[in-house]
Protein backbone atom coordinates (compact mmCIF):
# COMPACT_ATOMS: atom_id res chain seq x y z
CA UNK A 1 0.00 0.00 0.00
CA UNK A 2 1.69 3.17 -1.18
CA UNK A 3 1.33 6.81 -0.18
CA UNK A 4 -0.47 7.43 -3.46
CA UNK A 5 -2.18 4.45 -5.05
CA UNK A 6 -3.93 4.05 -8.37
CA UNK A 7 -6.22 1.05 -8.50
CA UNK A 8 -7.57 -0.14 -11.86
CA UNK A 9 -7.69 3.43 -13.15
CA UNK A 10 -9.44 3.62 -16.54
CA UNK A 11 -10.52 6.44 -18.82
CA UNK A 12 -12.65 5.81 -21.89
CA UNK A 13 -13.52 8.39 -24.53
CA UNK A 14 -16.48 6.79 -26.28
CA UNK A 15 -15.34 3.35 -27.35
CA UNK A 16 -11.61 4.05 -27.18
CA UNK A 17 -9.79 3.68 -23.88
CA UNK A 18 -7.15 6.38 -23.32
CA UNK A 19 -6.04 4.67 -20.09
CA UNK A 20 -6.86 1.03 -19.20
CA UNK A 21 -6.63 -0.55 -15.81
CA UNK A 22 -3.62 1.35 -14.48
CA UNK A 23 -2.61 0.21 -10.99
CA UNK A 24 0.39 1.68 -9.22
CA UNK A 25 1.61 2.34 -5.72
CA UNK A 26 3.89 5.32 -5.11
CA UNK A 27 5.91 5.50 -1.91
CA UNK A 28 6.33 8.71 0.06
CA UNK A 29 9.19 10.82 -1.28
CA UNK A 30 9.57 8.72 -4.40
CA UNK A 31 10.26 10.17 -7.86
CA UNK A 32 8.28 8.24 -10.47
CA UNK A 33 8.31 8.79 -14.23
CA UNK A 34 5.49 7.86 -16.57
CA UNK A 35 7.30 7.07 -19.81
CA UNK A 36 5.74 6.23 -23.14
CA UNK A 37 5.26 7.37 -26.71
CA UNK A 38 2.96 10.27 -27.53
CA UNK A 39 -0.73 9.40 -27.14
CA UNK A 40 -0.21 6.45 -24.77
CA UNK A 41 -2.29 8.06 -22.01
CA UNK A 42 0.34 9.65 -19.76
CA UNK A 43 -1.29 13.08 -19.56
CA UNK A 44 -4.73 11.52 -19.05
CA UNK A 45 -3.36 9.47 -16.13
CA UNK A 46 -1.74 12.54 -14.58
CA UNK A 47 -4.89 14.65 -15.00
CA UNK A 48 -7.00 11.95 -13.36
CA UNK A 49 -4.67 12.14 -10.36
CA UNK A 50 -4.94 15.94 -10.46
CA UNK A 51 -8.75 15.79 -10.66
CA UNK A 52 -8.98 17.50 -14.05
CA UNK A 53 -10.24 14.37 -15.82
CA UNK A 54 -12.98 12.21 -14.31
CA UNK A 55 -11.97 8.50 -14.33
CA UNK A 56 -14.36 6.05 -16.02
CA UNK A 57 -13.42 3.38 -13.49
CA UNK A 58 -10.91 2.73 -10.72
CA UNK A 59 -9.84 4.37 -7.50
CA UNK A 60 -7.22 6.88 -6.41
CA UNK A 61 -6.19 7.08 -2.77
CA UNK A 62 -3.83 9.57 -1.21
CA UNK A 63 -2.45 8.78 2.25
CA UNK A 64 -5.37 6.43 2.88
CA UNK A 65 -8.00 8.97 1.73
CA UNK A 66 -10.12 8.16 -1.33
CA UNK A 67 -9.80 11.19 -3.64
CA UNK A 68 -11.20 9.60 -6.81
CA UNK A 69 -14.11 12.04 -7.08
CA UNK A 70 -12.72 15.00 -5.16
CA UNK A 71 -12.63 18.39 -6.88
CA UNK A 72 -9.16 19.54 -8.00
CA UNK A 73 -9.20 22.52 -5.63
CA UNK A 74 -9.69 20.19 -2.65
CA UNK A 75 -6.86 17.78 -3.46
CA UNK A 76 -4.04 20.20 -2.74
CA UNK A 77 -1.66 18.65 -5.26
CA UNK A 78 1.07 20.66 -6.97
CA UNK A 79 0.94 20.53 -10.74
CA UNK A 80 3.34 21.82 -13.38
CA UNK A 81 1.64 21.91 -16.77
CA UNK A 82 3.37 21.27 -20.06
CA UNK A 83 2.55 24.82 -21.18
CA UNK A 84 3.41 26.03 -17.63
CA UNK A 85 -0.02 27.77 -17.54
CA UNK A 86 1.33 30.77 -15.60
CA UNK A 87 -1.12 33.58 -14.91
CA UNK A 88 -0.05 36.11 -17.56
CA UNK A 89 -1.45 39.16 -15.75
CA UNK A 90 0.36 38.45 -12.49
CA UNK A 91 4.01 38.97 -11.60
CA UNK A 92 6.24 36.04 -10.72
CA UNK A 93 5.69 36.71 -7.01
CA UNK A 94 1.91 37.01 -7.45
CA UNK A 95 1.86 33.76 -9.42
CA UNK A 96 3.68 31.93 -6.66
CA UNK A 97 1.60 33.61 -3.98
CA UNK A 98 -1.76 32.62 -5.54
CA UNK A 99 -1.99 29.16 -3.96
CA UNK A 100 -1.17 30.58 -0.53
CA UNK A 101 -3.82 33.28 -0.92
CA UNK A 102 -6.36 30.57 -1.72
CA UNK A 103 -5.31 28.87 1.53
CA UNK A 104 -5.82 32.15 3.40
CA UNK A 105 -2.22 32.20 4.61
CA UNK A 106 -1.56 35.54 6.38
CA UNK A 107 0.22 38.20 4.40
CA UNK A 108 3.54 38.17 6.27
CA UNK A 109 3.91 34.39 6.16
CA UNK A 110 2.89 34.41 2.50
CA UNK A 111 5.68 36.83 1.64
CA UNK A 112 8.36 34.77 3.40
CA UNK A 113 7.18 31.53 1.82
CA UNK A 114 7.08 33.08 -1.66
CA UNK A 115 10.61 34.35 -1.10
CA UNK A 116 11.80 30.92 0.01
CA UNK A 117 10.16 29.21 -2.97
CA UNK A 118 11.71 31.67 -5.41
CA UNK A 119 15.10 31.24 -3.76
CA UNK A 120 14.73 27.48 -4.13
CA UNK A 121 14.41 27.84 -7.91
CA UNK A 122 16.95 30.70 -8.02
CA UNK A 123 14.52 33.33 -9.24
CA UNK A 124 14.53 35.70 -6.27
CA UNK A 125 15.80 38.54 -8.44
CA UNK A 126 12.94 38.27 -10.93
CA UNK A 127 10.02 38.39 -8.47
CA UNK A 128 8.49 41.50 -10.02
CA UNK A 129 8.70 40.45 -13.65
CA UNK A 130 5.70 39.30 -15.66
CA UNK A 131 5.78 35.82 -17.24
CA UNK A 132 6.10 37.32 -20.74
CA UNK A 133 9.40 38.90 -19.67
CA UNK A 134 10.94 35.53 -18.78
CA UNK A 135 12.78 32.90 -20.81
CA UNK A 136 11.40 29.38 -21.18
CA UNK A 137 13.61 27.95 -18.46
CA UNK A 138 12.70 30.74 -16.04
CA UNK A 139 8.97 30.23 -16.70
CA UNK A 140 9.41 26.56 -16.04
CA UNK A 141 11.02 27.33 -12.70
CA UNK A 142 8.24 29.76 -11.77
CA UNK A 143 5.76 26.95 -12.47
CA UNK A 144 7.75 24.64 -10.20
CA UNK A 145 7.91 27.26 -7.44
CA UNK A 146 4.18 27.93 -7.75
CA UNK A 147 3.43 24.23 -7.41
CA UNK A 148 5.86 23.64 -4.52
CA UNK A 149 5.06 26.67 -2.38
CA UNK A 150 1.77 25.17 -1.20
CA UNK A 151 3.67 22.19 0.29
CA UNK A 152 1.76 19.66 -1.79
CA UNK A 153 1.78 16.00 -0.70
CA UNK A 154 2.37 15.07 -4.35
CA UNK A 155 3.96 17.02 -7.18
CA UNK A 156 2.73 16.22 -10.72
CA UNK A 157 4.85 17.28 -13.68
CA UNK A 158 3.58 17.00 -17.27
CA UNK A 159 6.55 16.99 -19.66
CA UNK A 160 8.07 19.87 -17.71
CA UNK A 161 11.22 20.04 -19.82
CA UNK A 162 9.92 19.36 -23.32
CA UNK A 163 9.70 23.05 -24.26
CA UNK A 164 13.34 23.73 -23.43
CA UNK A 165 16.33 23.46 -25.73
CA UNK A 166 18.68 20.49 -25.30
CA UNK A 167 21.34 22.18 -23.17
CA UNK A 168 18.90 23.84 -20.81
CA UNK A 169 16.89 20.63 -20.57
CA UNK A 170 19.92 18.76 -19.30
CA UNK A 171 20.64 21.44 -16.71
CA UNK A 172 17.04 21.51 -15.59
CA UNK A 173 16.97 17.72 -15.23
CA UNK A 174 19.67 17.95 -12.58
CA UNK A 175 18.16 21.03 -11.00
CA UNK A 176 14.66 19.58 -10.79
CA UNK A 177 15.93 16.35 -9.33
CA UNK A 178 18.06 18.33 -6.85
CA UNK A 179 15.06 20.39 -5.73
CA UNK A 180 12.97 17.24 -5.35
CA UNK A 181 15.69 15.61 -3.21
CA UNK A 182 15.99 18.68 -0.99
CA UNK A 183 12.24 19.14 -0.50
CA UNK A 184 11.42 15.44 -0.47
CA UNK A 185 8.08 15.81 -2.24
CA UNK A 186 6.58 12.67 -3.76
CA UNK A 187 6.77 13.34 -7.49
CA UNK A 188 5.22 11.89 -10.63
CA UNK A 189 6.67 13.16 -13.88
CA UNK A 190 5.30 12.48 -17.35
CA UNK A 191 7.81 12.29 -20.17
CA UNK A 192 8.27 10.76 -23.59
CA UNK A 193 12.04 11.16 -23.32
CA UNK A 194 13.59 7.90 -22.12
CA UNK A 195 16.92 9.43 -21.13
CA UNK A 196 15.10 11.99 -18.97
CA UNK A 197 13.09 9.22 -17.29
CA UNK A 198 16.21 7.12 -16.67
CA UNK A 199 18.36 9.93 -15.32
CA UNK A 200 15.79 11.46 -12.95
CA UNK A 201 13.55 8.76 -11.51
CA UNK A 202 13.64 6.28 -8.66
CA UNK A 203 11.29 4.12 -10.68
CA UNK A 204 10.06 4.31 -14.27
CA UNK A 205 6.57 3.30 -15.35
CA UNK A 206 6.50 2.41 -19.03
CA UNK A 207 3.12 2.82 -20.72
CA UNK A 208 1.94 1.73 -24.12
CA UNK A 209 -1.57 2.22 -25.51
CA UNK A 210 -3.03 3.17 -22.17
CA UNK A 211 -1.57 0.22 -20.25
CA UNK A 212 1.38 -0.16 -17.90
CA UNK A 213 3.95 -2.48 -19.49
CA UNK A 214 6.68 -2.41 -16.84
CA UNK A 215 7.50 -0.69 -13.57
CA UNK A 216 11.16 -0.83 -12.56
CA UNK A 217 14.18 1.08 -11.37
CA UNK A 218 15.91 2.78 -14.34
CA UNK A 219 18.92 0.46 -14.30
CA UNK A 220 16.81 -2.71 -14.17
CA UNK A 221 14.46 -1.36 -16.84
CA UNK A 222 17.43 -0.81 -19.11
CA UNK A 223 19.07 -4.15 -18.40
CA UNK A 224 15.92 -6.30 -18.31
CA UNK A 225 13.24 -4.76 -20.52
CA UNK A 226 10.01 -6.75 -20.25
CA UNK A 227 9.02 -6.50 -23.91
CA UNK A 228 10.77 -5.96 -27.24
CA UNK A 229 8.94 -2.65 -27.46
CA UNK A 230 10.49 -1.45 -24.22
CA UNK A 231 13.92 -2.74 -25.22
CA UNK A 232 13.94 -0.50 -28.28
CA UNK A 233 12.05 2.42 -26.68
CA UNK A 234 14.41 2.63 -23.71
CA UNK A 235 17.89 2.90 -25.16
CA UNK A 236 18.99 1.23 -28.38
CA UNK A 237 18.82 -2.53 -28.85
CA UNK A 238 20.15 -4.79 -31.61
CA UNK A 239 17.72 -7.59 -32.40
CA UNK A 240 19.10 -10.44 -34.55
CA UNK A 241 16.67 -13.21 -35.54
CA UNK A 242 17.94 -16.84 -35.72
CA UNK A 243 17.54 -20.32 -34.29
CA UNK A 244 18.38 -21.37 -30.71
CA UNK A 245 21.22 -23.89 -30.39
CA UNK A 246 22.99 -24.96 -27.23
CA UNK A 247 24.89 -21.88 -25.96
CA UNK A 248 23.76 -19.36 -28.53
CA UNK A 249 21.74 -18.33 -31.52
CA UNK A 250 22.58 -19.50 -34.99
CA UNK A 251 22.24 -16.59 -37.38
CA UNK A 252 24.02 -15.74 -40.63
CA UNK A 253 25.90 -19.01 -40.52
CA UNK A 254 27.51 -18.29 -37.14
CA UNK A 255 26.74 -19.36 -33.60
CA UNK A 256 26.37 -16.13 -31.64
CA UNK A 257 26.89 -16.72 -27.91
CA UNK A 258 24.11 -15.58 -25.59
CA UNK A 259 22.05 -16.31 -22.52
CA UNK A 260 18.87 -18.22 -23.42
CA UNK A 261 17.26 -19.99 -20.49
CA UNK A 262 14.05 -21.88 -21.24
CA UNK A 263 14.38 -22.09 -25.02
CA UNK A 264 13.97 -25.40 -26.87
CA UNK A 265 16.74 -26.57 -29.22
CA UNK A 266 15.96 -25.53 -32.79
CA UNK A 267 13.27 -23.00 -31.82
CA UNK A 268 13.08 -19.66 -33.61
CA UNK A 269 14.64 -17.00 -31.38
CA UNK A 270 15.91 -13.44 -31.37
CA UNK A 271 19.22 -12.29 -29.92
CA UNK A 272 19.08 -8.92 -28.14
CA UNK A 273 22.19 -6.93 -27.25
CA UNK A 274 22.84 -3.27 -26.48
CA UNK A 275 25.26 -1.45 -28.83
CA UNK A 276 27.61 -0.44 -25.98
CA UNK A 277 28.13 -4.09 -24.97
CA UNK A 278 29.78 -4.93 -28.29
CA UNK A 279 33.48 -4.37 -28.94
CA UNK A 280 35.31 -4.00 -32.25
CA UNK A 281 38.24 -6.34 -33.04
CA UNK A 282 40.34 -7.21 -36.06
CA UNK A 283 38.44 -9.36 -38.61
CA UNK A 284 38.20 -12.96 -37.34
CA UNK A 285 38.94 -11.86 -33.77
CA UNK A 286 35.33 -11.67 -32.63
CA UNK A 287 32.05 -13.57 -32.72
CA UNK A 288 31.12 -12.49 -36.22
CA UNK A 289 32.77 -10.39 -38.95
CA UNK A 290 31.31 -7.42 -40.76
CA UNK A 291 31.98 -4.24 -42.64
CA UNK A 292 31.44 -0.72 -41.24
CA UNK A 293 28.64 0.91 -43.24
CA UNK A 294 28.35 4.18 -41.35
CA UNK A 295 30.09 5.96 -38.50
CA UNK A 296 28.72 8.77 -36.32
CA UNK A 297 30.66 10.90 -33.87
CA UNK A 298 28.56 11.73 -30.79
CA UNK A 299 31.20 13.56 -28.74
CA UNK A 300 31.49 11.20 -25.81
CA UNK A 301 31.09 8.13 -28.04
CA UNK A 302 31.33 6.77 -31.55
CA UNK A 303 28.40 4.94 -33.09
CA UNK A 304 28.93 2.42 -35.90
CA UNK A 305 26.50 0.56 -38.11
CA UNK A 306 28.12 -2.73 -39.08
CA UNK A 307 26.81 -4.95 -41.86
CA UNK A 308 27.14 -8.65 -40.96
CA UNK A 309 25.78 -11.90 -42.33
CA UNK A 310 23.28 -11.92 -39.42
CA UNK A 311 21.99 -8.40 -40.20
CA UNK A 312 22.84 -4.78 -39.39
CA UNK A 313 24.39 -4.33 -35.95
CA UNK A 314 24.76 -1.03 -34.08
CA UNK A 315 27.95 -0.66 -32.03
CA UNK A 316 28.73 2.14 -29.60
CA UNK A 317 32.29 2.77 -28.36
CA UNK A 318 33.41 5.38 -25.85
CA UNK A 319 35.56 8.11 -27.35
CA UNK A 320 39.06 7.20 -26.20
CA UNK A 321 40.73 10.17 -27.85
CA UNK A 322 42.02 8.48 -31.01
CA UNK A 323 40.18 8.04 -34.29
CA UNK A 324 38.75 4.50 -34.54
CA UNK A 325 37.99 2.35 -37.60
CA UNK A 326 36.67 4.10 -40.72
CA UNK A 327 33.67 3.49 -42.94
CA UNK A 328 34.21 0.55 -45.32
CA UNK A 329 36.72 -1.16 -43.04
CA UNK A 330 36.31 -4.87 -42.23
CA UNK A 331 36.03 -5.56 -38.48
CA UNK A 332 35.10 -8.29 -36.05
CA UNK A 333 32.39 -7.93 -33.39
CA UNK A 334 33.00 -9.31 -29.92
CA UNK A 335 30.76 -9.70 -26.88
CA UNK A 336 30.47 -11.87 -23.83
CA UNK A 337 27.64 -14.35 -23.78
CA UNK A 338 26.34 -12.86 -20.49
CA UNK A 339 25.60 -9.47 -22.08
CA UNK A 340 23.41 -10.87 -24.87
CA UNK A 341 20.01 -12.41 -24.28
CA UNK A 342 17.96 -14.73 -26.45
CA UNK A 343 14.19 -14.71 -26.48
CA UNK A 344 11.28 -15.96 -28.49
CA UNK A 345 10.35 -13.63 -31.35
CA UNK A 346 7.92 -11.03 -29.86
CA UNK A 347 8.27 -12.89 -26.56
CA UNK A 348 9.55 -11.91 -23.14
CA UNK A 349 13.25 -11.11 -23.22
CA UNK A 350 14.21 -11.03 -19.60
CA UNK A 351 15.66 -14.13 -18.04
Amino acid at each position, binding site marked *: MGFLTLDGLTKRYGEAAAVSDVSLGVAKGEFISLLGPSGCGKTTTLQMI*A*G*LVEPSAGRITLDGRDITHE*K*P*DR*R*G*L*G*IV*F*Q*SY*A*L*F*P*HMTVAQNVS*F*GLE*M*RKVPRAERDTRVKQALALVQLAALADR*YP*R*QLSGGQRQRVAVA*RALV*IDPPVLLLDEPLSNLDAKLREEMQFELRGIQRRVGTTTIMVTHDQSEALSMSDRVVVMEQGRIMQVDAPYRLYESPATPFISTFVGKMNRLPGVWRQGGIEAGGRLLPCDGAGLAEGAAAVLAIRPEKIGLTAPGGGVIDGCIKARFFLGSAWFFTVETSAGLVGVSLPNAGAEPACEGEAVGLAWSSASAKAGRPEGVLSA
Partner: protein
Amino acid sequence: MSSARAGTTPWLLAAPGALLFTALVLVPLVLTFVLSFHVYDTASGVKDETTLAHYATILTDSYFLNIFWRTLRLAALTTMLCATIGAPEAYILSRMGEPWRSIFLLAIIGPLLVSVVVRAFGWSMLLGPTGLVNEVFRALGLGTVKILYTETAIVIALVHVMLPFMVIPVWTSLQKLDPMVEAAAWTLGASRFTALRRVVLPQVTTGLLSGSLVVFGLSASAFAIPALLGGRRLKMAATLVYDEYMHELNWPLGAAIAILVLVINLVIMLAYQRVVEARARRTLG
Protein backbone atom coordinates in the same frame (compact mmCIF):
# COMPACT_ATOMS: atom_id res chain seq x y z
CA MET B 1 13.69 55.05 -58.03
CA SER B 2 12.38 52.30 -55.86
CA SER B 3 12.67 54.46 -52.77
CA ALA B 4 10.63 57.18 -54.46
CA ARG B 5 7.99 54.60 -55.27
CA ALA B 6 8.03 53.38 -51.66
CA GLY B 7 7.32 56.98 -50.67
CA THR B 8 4.26 57.45 -52.87
CA THR B 9 2.76 53.95 -52.91
CA PRO B 10 1.22 54.16 -49.44
CA TRP B 11 -0.40 57.47 -50.33
CA LEU B 12 -1.78 56.08 -53.57
CA LEU B 13 -3.14 53.05 -51.80
CA ALA B 14 -4.77 55.17 -49.12
CA ALA B 15 -6.18 57.71 -51.57
CA PRO B 16 -9.49 55.98 -52.54
CA GLY B 17 -10.40 55.44 -48.90
CA ALA B 18 -9.35 58.93 -47.96
CA LEU B 19 -11.40 60.47 -50.79
CA LEU B 20 -14.46 58.44 -49.86
CA PHE B 21 -14.07 59.41 -46.22
CA THR B 22 -13.64 63.08 -47.08
CA ALA B 23 -16.65 63.13 -49.42
CA LEU B 24 -19.03 61.14 -47.24
CA VAL B 25 -17.98 62.01 -43.70
CA LEU B 26 -15.78 65.08 -43.43
CA VAL B 27 -17.59 67.37 -45.87
CA PRO B 28 -21.10 66.74 -44.44
CA LEU B 29 -19.65 67.09 -40.95
CA VAL B 30 -18.09 70.46 -41.76
CA LEU B 31 -21.32 71.62 -43.45
CA THR B 32 -23.32 70.53 -40.41
CA PHE B 33 -20.87 72.35 -38.15
CA VAL B 34 -21.18 75.57 -40.18
CA LEU B 35 -24.97 75.22 -40.38
CA SER B 36 -25.27 74.96 -36.61
CA PHE B 37 -24.15 78.61 -36.28
CA HIS B 38 -26.71 80.03 -38.71
CA VAL B 39 -29.72 82.04 -37.59
CA TYR B 40 -33.10 80.37 -38.14
CA ASP B 41 -36.35 82.22 -38.51
CA THR B 42 -39.72 80.43 -38.76
CA ALA B 43 -40.90 82.85 -41.41
CA SER B 44 -37.89 82.99 -43.73
CA GLY B 45 -35.91 79.82 -42.81
CA VAL B 46 -32.11 79.71 -42.57
CA LYS B 47 -30.47 83.12 -42.76
CA ASP B 48 -26.92 84.13 -43.62
CA GLU B 49 -26.18 85.56 -40.17
CA THR B 50 -24.30 83.64 -37.48
CA THR B 51 -25.27 83.09 -33.88
CA LEU B 52 -24.52 80.91 -30.84
CA ALA B 53 -28.19 80.91 -29.85
CA HIS B 54 -28.86 77.30 -30.80
CA TYR B 55 -26.14 76.00 -28.50
CA ALA B 56 -27.38 78.27 -25.72
CA THR B 57 -30.94 76.98 -26.18
CA ILE B 58 -29.88 73.34 -26.08
CA LEU B 59 -27.68 73.71 -23.03
CA THR B 60 -30.27 75.62 -21.01
CA ASP B 61 -33.56 74.03 -22.09
CA SER B 62 -34.46 71.13 -19.80
CA TYR B 63 -36.34 69.47 -22.68
CA PHE B 64 -33.06 68.90 -24.55
CA LEU B 65 -31.03 68.16 -21.44
CA ASN B 66 -33.53 65.47 -20.44
CA ILE B 67 -33.18 63.78 -23.81
CA PHE B 68 -29.37 63.91 -23.61
CA TRP B 69 -29.45 62.49 -20.12
CA ARG B 70 -31.80 59.70 -21.25
CA THR B 71 -29.52 58.91 -24.18
CA LEU B 72 -26.47 58.56 -21.94
CA ARG B 73 -28.40 56.61 -19.32
CA LEU B 74 -29.90 54.11 -21.77
CA ALA B 75 -26.61 53.69 -23.64
CA ALA B 76 -24.78 53.03 -20.35
CA LEU B 77 -27.49 50.61 -19.17
CA THR B 78 -27.39 48.77 -22.51
CA THR B 79 -23.60 48.54 -22.26
CA MET B 80 -23.76 47.13 -18.75
CA LEU B 81 -26.43 44.59 -19.65
CA CYS B 82 -24.52 43.55 -22.76
CA ALA B 83 -21.39 43.03 -20.64
CA THR B 84 -23.19 40.99 -17.98
CA ILE B 85 -24.95 38.83 -20.58
CA GLY B 86 -22.27 38.80 -23.27
CA ALA B 87 -19.22 37.88 -21.16
CA PRO B 88 -20.70 34.66 -19.68
CA GLU B 89 -22.17 33.87 -23.09
CA ALA B 90 -18.73 34.18 -24.70
CA TYR B 91 -17.17 32.05 -21.94
CA ILE B 92 -19.72 29.26 -22.38
CA LEU B 93 -19.24 29.50 -26.14
CA SER B 94 -15.46 29.14 -25.81
CA ARG B 95 -15.84 26.02 -23.64
CA MET B 96 -18.30 24.35 -26.06
CA GLY B 97 -17.26 21.48 -28.33
CA GLU B 98 -17.90 21.33 -32.04
CA PRO B 99 -20.41 21.33 -33.71
CA TRP B 100 -22.34 23.26 -31.03
CA ARG B 101 -19.85 26.09 -30.91
CA SER B 102 -20.33 26.89 -34.63
CA ILE B 103 -24.10 26.57 -34.38
CA PHE B 104 -24.35 28.94 -31.40
CA LEU B 105 -21.86 31.38 -32.88
CA LEU B 106 -24.04 31.52 -35.99
CA ALA B 107 -27.12 32.07 -33.81
CA ILE B 108 -25.35 35.02 -32.16
CA ILE B 109 -24.00 36.60 -35.34
CA GLY B 110 -26.96 35.67 -37.56
CA PRO B 111 -29.23 38.54 -36.45
CA LEU B 112 -26.63 41.01 -37.79
CA LEU B 113 -27.76 39.90 -41.24
CA VAL B 114 -31.30 41.20 -40.57
CA SER B 115 -32.03 44.92 -40.80
CA VAL B 116 -32.31 46.74 -37.47
CA VAL B 117 -35.64 48.19 -38.62
CA VAL B 118 -37.06 44.70 -39.17
CA ARG B 119 -35.83 43.58 -35.77
CA ALA B 120 -37.31 46.67 -34.10
CA PHE B 121 -40.68 45.92 -35.70
CA GLY B 122 -40.35 42.36 -34.46
CA TRP B 123 -39.89 43.63 -30.92
CA SER B 124 -42.80 46.04 -31.22
CA MET B 125 -45.04 43.13 -32.24
CA LEU B 126 -43.80 41.07 -29.30
CA LEU B 127 -44.04 43.85 -26.70
CA GLY B 128 -47.25 45.58 -27.84
CA PRO B 129 -50.50 45.51 -25.81
CA THR B 130 -51.73 42.52 -27.83
CA GLY B 131 -48.25 41.06 -28.38
CA LEU B 132 -46.99 37.67 -27.31
CA VAL B 133 -45.44 38.95 -24.07
CA ASN B 134 -48.68 40.50 -22.85
CA GLU B 135 -50.66 37.42 -23.96
CA VAL B 136 -48.41 35.38 -21.67
CA PHE B 137 -48.78 37.90 -18.82
CA ARG B 138 -52.57 37.79 -19.17
CA ALA B 139 -52.55 34.00 -19.26
CA LEU B 140 -50.57 34.05 -16.01
CA GLY B 141 -53.10 36.47 -14.53
CA LEU B 142 -50.67 39.41 -14.37
CA GLY B 143 -52.81 41.70 -16.50
CA THR B 144 -51.56 43.88 -19.34
CA VAL B 145 -48.22 45.62 -18.80
CA LYS B 146 -47.18 48.66 -20.80
CA ILE B 147 -43.79 47.84 -22.29
CA LEU B 148 -43.92 49.21 -25.80
CA TYR B 149 -43.07 52.94 -26.00
CA THR B 150 -41.20 52.81 -22.69
CA GLU B 151 -37.48 52.94 -21.96
CA THR B 152 -37.67 49.22 -21.11
CA ALA B 153 -38.63 48.39 -24.69
CA ILE B 154 -35.76 50.51 -26.04
CA VAL B 155 -33.23 48.84 -23.74
CA ILE B 156 -34.49 45.31 -24.49
CA ALA B 157 -34.18 45.87 -28.23
CA LEU B 158 -30.83 47.69 -27.95
CA VAL B 159 -29.34 44.85 -25.88
CA HIS B 160 -30.56 42.35 -28.45
CA VAL B 161 -29.03 44.26 -31.33
CA MET B 162 -25.74 45.13 -29.58
CA LEU B 163 -24.98 41.75 -27.99
CA PRO B 164 -22.87 40.41 -30.90
CA PHE B 165 -20.60 43.45 -30.61
CA MET B 166 -19.86 42.40 -27.03
CA VAL B 167 -19.70 38.63 -27.48
CA ILE B 168 -17.27 38.68 -30.38
CA PRO B 169 -14.41 40.71 -28.80
CA VAL B 170 -14.73 38.81 -25.51
CA TRP B 171 -14.77 35.51 -27.33
CA THR B 172 -11.68 36.52 -29.29
CA SER B 173 -9.74 37.31 -26.13
CA LEU B 174 -10.88 34.03 -24.55
CA GLN B 175 -9.54 32.17 -27.58
CA LYS B 176 -6.07 33.45 -26.72
CA LEU B 177 -6.25 32.08 -23.16
CA ASP B 178 -4.69 28.67 -22.50
CA PRO B 179 -7.51 26.62 -20.89
CA MET B 180 -4.89 25.03 -18.64
CA VAL B 181 -4.37 28.42 -16.94
CA GLU B 182 -7.85 28.12 -15.44
CA ALA B 183 -7.14 24.49 -14.46
CA ALA B 184 -3.93 25.66 -12.80
CA ALA B 185 -5.94 28.01 -10.61
CA TRP B 186 -8.25 25.15 -9.56
CA THR B 187 -5.35 22.93 -8.62
CA LEU B 188 -3.94 25.75 -6.48
CA GLY B 189 -7.14 25.74 -4.46
CA ALA B 190 -9.33 28.27 -6.29
CA SER B 191 -13.03 27.47 -6.62
CA ARG B 192 -14.59 27.69 -10.09
CA PHE B 193 -15.94 31.14 -9.28
CA THR B 194 -12.65 32.43 -7.83
CA ALA B 195 -10.74 31.09 -10.85
CA LEU B 196 -13.13 32.92 -13.17
CA ARG B 197 -12.84 36.16 -11.21
CA ARG B 198 -9.11 36.14 -10.51
CA VAL B 199 -7.72 34.43 -13.61
CA VAL B 200 -10.15 34.39 -16.56
CA LEU B 201 -11.80 37.79 -16.11
CA PRO B 202 -8.56 39.84 -16.03
CA GLN B 203 -7.59 38.16 -19.29
CA VAL B 204 -10.78 39.22 -21.06
CA THR B 205 -11.04 42.79 -19.73
CA THR B 206 -9.50 44.16 -22.91
CA GLY B 207 -12.15 42.39 -24.97
CA LEU B 208 -14.84 43.48 -22.52
CA LEU B 209 -13.72 47.12 -22.56
CA SER B 210 -13.41 47.38 -26.33
CA GLY B 211 -16.78 45.67 -26.73
CA SER B 212 -18.27 48.20 -24.29
CA LEU B 213 -16.84 51.04 -26.32
CA VAL B 214 -18.52 49.83 -29.50
CA VAL B 215 -21.83 49.06 -27.79
CA PHE B 216 -21.92 52.42 -26.01
CA GLY B 217 -21.12 54.38 -29.16
CA LEU B 218 -23.68 52.55 -31.28
CA SER B 219 -26.39 52.70 -28.58
CA ALA B 220 -25.93 56.41 -27.92
CA SER B 221 -26.39 57.17 -31.63
CA ALA B 222 -29.05 54.52 -32.35
CA PHE B 223 -31.95 55.79 -34.41
CA ALA B 224 -34.27 53.02 -35.62
CA ILE B 225 -34.88 51.40 -32.24
CA PRO B 226 -35.78 54.51 -30.23
CA ALA B 227 -37.81 55.76 -33.19
CA LEU B 228 -39.88 52.58 -33.46
CA LEU B 229 -39.97 51.40 -29.84
CA GLY B 230 -39.83 54.74 -27.99
CA GLY B 231 -42.72 56.24 -29.89
CA ARG B 232 -43.28 59.96 -30.57
CA ARG B 233 -42.77 61.12 -26.99
CA LEU B 234 -39.80 59.11 -25.78
CA LYS B 235 -36.89 60.57 -27.73
CA MET B 236 -33.18 59.86 -27.80
CA ALA B 237 -30.48 62.07 -29.34
CA ALA B 238 -30.68 60.66 -32.87
CA THR B 239 -34.49 60.80 -33.02
CA LEU B 240 -34.38 64.35 -31.66
CA VAL B 241 -32.08 65.47 -34.47
CA TYR B 242 -34.39 63.78 -36.99
CA ASP B 243 -37.36 65.65 -35.49
CA GLU B 244 -35.67 69.05 -35.67
CA TYR B 245 -34.74 68.46 -39.30
CA MET B 246 -37.93 66.80 -40.59
CA HIS B 247 -40.76 68.10 -38.41
CA GLU B 248 -39.66 71.46 -36.99
CA LEU B 249 -37.60 72.17 -40.12
CA ASN B 250 -35.14 73.97 -37.84
CA TRP B 251 -32.03 72.62 -39.50
CA PRO B 252 -29.50 74.80 -37.64
CA LEU B 253 -30.86 73.64 -34.26
CA GLY B 254 -30.79 70.00 -35.44
CA ALA B 255 -27.22 70.52 -36.61
CA ALA B 256 -26.22 72.01 -33.25
CA ILE B 257 -27.73 68.99 -31.43
CA ALA B 258 -25.91 66.59 -33.76
CA ILE B 259 -22.59 68.34 -33.15
CA LEU B 260 -23.11 68.33 -29.38
CA VAL B 261 -23.99 64.63 -29.38
CA LEU B 262 -20.90 63.92 -31.45
CA VAL B 263 -18.66 65.90 -29.08
CA ILE B 264 -20.09 64.29 -25.94
CA ASN B 265 -19.81 60.82 -27.44
CA LEU B 266 -16.26 61.51 -28.57
CA VAL B 267 -15.17 62.78 -25.16
CA ILE B 268 -16.66 59.77 -23.34
CA MET B 269 -15.19 57.28 -25.78
CA LEU B 270 -11.72 58.85 -25.80
CA ALA B 271 -11.61 58.92 -22.01
CA TYR B 272 -12.72 55.31 -21.94
CA GLN B 273 -10.17 54.35 -24.60
CA ARG B 274 -7.46 55.82 -22.36
CA VAL B 275 -8.52 53.53 -19.54
CA VAL B 276 -8.68 50.54 -21.88
CA GLU B 277 -5.21 51.14 -23.25
CA ALA B 278 -3.59 51.73 -19.89
CA ARG B 279 -5.16 48.53 -18.64
CA ALA B 280 -4.13 46.53 -21.73
CA ARG B 281 -0.56 47.74 -21.43
CA ARG B 282 -0.46 46.63 -17.83
CA THR B 283 -1.90 43.14 -18.37
CA LEU B 284 -0.68 42.18 -21.82
CA GLY B 285 2.42 44.27 -22.43
